[in-house]
């Protein structure tokens, strides 16, 4: 009986110590979705390629999905080796006639964030092109990073 009580007391102590070590507020590991937008202005966007990375914080890419417009709905091209890493190059194209213009979400990147530090995401648009394959001026921006 005494041994059982001692074991129970030890378990309770362990739980208390583990709880005390957990930081209050945010969980140690959380998942976020980062949306990537490309704004091609008036030009229809037929192809894009960008690089996304987190320069600060412990972030790992866990999944990538396509964009909002039908032309880029399918999952884009990316190196599978980028999964569980903090850097990825994403690209897609569409040879059809129905293409988005203006600002459109082209991809959603799911990430796993560890620790309190907020990842500092950086996106760099490598190239964007119109339907005739010519390079066009465009910008890439990010949104999200909200807990999911």
């Amino acid at each position, binding site marked *: 009986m005494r041994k059982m009580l001692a074991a129970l007391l030890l378990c309770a102590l362990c739980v208390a110590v583990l709880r005390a070590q957990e930081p209050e507020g945010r969980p140690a590991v959380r998942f976020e979705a980062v949306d990537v937008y490309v704004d091609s202005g008036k030009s229809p966007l*037929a192809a894009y*390629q960008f690089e996304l990375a987190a320069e600060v914080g412990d972030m790992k890419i866990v999944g990538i999905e396509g964009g909002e417009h039908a032309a880029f709905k399918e999952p884009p091209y990316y190196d599978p*080796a980028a999964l569980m890493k903090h850097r*990825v190059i994403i690209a*897609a194209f569409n040879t059809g006639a129905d293409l988005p213009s203006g600002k459109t979400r082209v991809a959603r990147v799911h990430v796993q964030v560890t620790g309190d530090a907020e990842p500092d995401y950086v996106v760099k648009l490598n190239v964007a092109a119109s339907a005739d*394959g010519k390079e066009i001026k465009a910008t890439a921006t990010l949104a999200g990073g909200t807990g999911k």
Partner: protein
Amino acid sequence: MGNTANHPDGTGPEAPKALSDDLWSLYRSRVHVPPEVDRAVLEMARSRFAGRRRSVLVLRWATVGAAAAALLLALSLMVQQERPLAPRIPSTRPEAAVRQDVDGNGRVDILDAFALARHIEARDKRRHEWDVNGDGDVNQADVDTVAMAAVSLEKGTLQ
């Protein structure tokens, strides 16, 4: 030494002569070794030592041989390193990267895959260099190969 400790005069214990004679006669060797057995033992010892000498000689020559082989190997490696590597490594651009650079702008990106896809869709006259994956056909697999090269984290872009 222990005996001298027991006998301070240093003479040690003396057995009586009768006992000493009896013991001597009891343990005196009476074994007679015939000369042929003696010779046989001697022969065996000689042959054994001769065999050992042979194995020592073999071991010595094996060591010398191994050292010579190692020296030859090192020399051949040195000679190979001094040879030009031109036949094995392309001089400037890797051939695969050149093929993936469909639009020929000096870098591999998604626009190369896009250009190839447009060529295929337009049923343009097939060019040998568009067969990027080398399977003898120009199709979606080649487009995918170029696109995957464009997004590879370890890609060697053409500069």
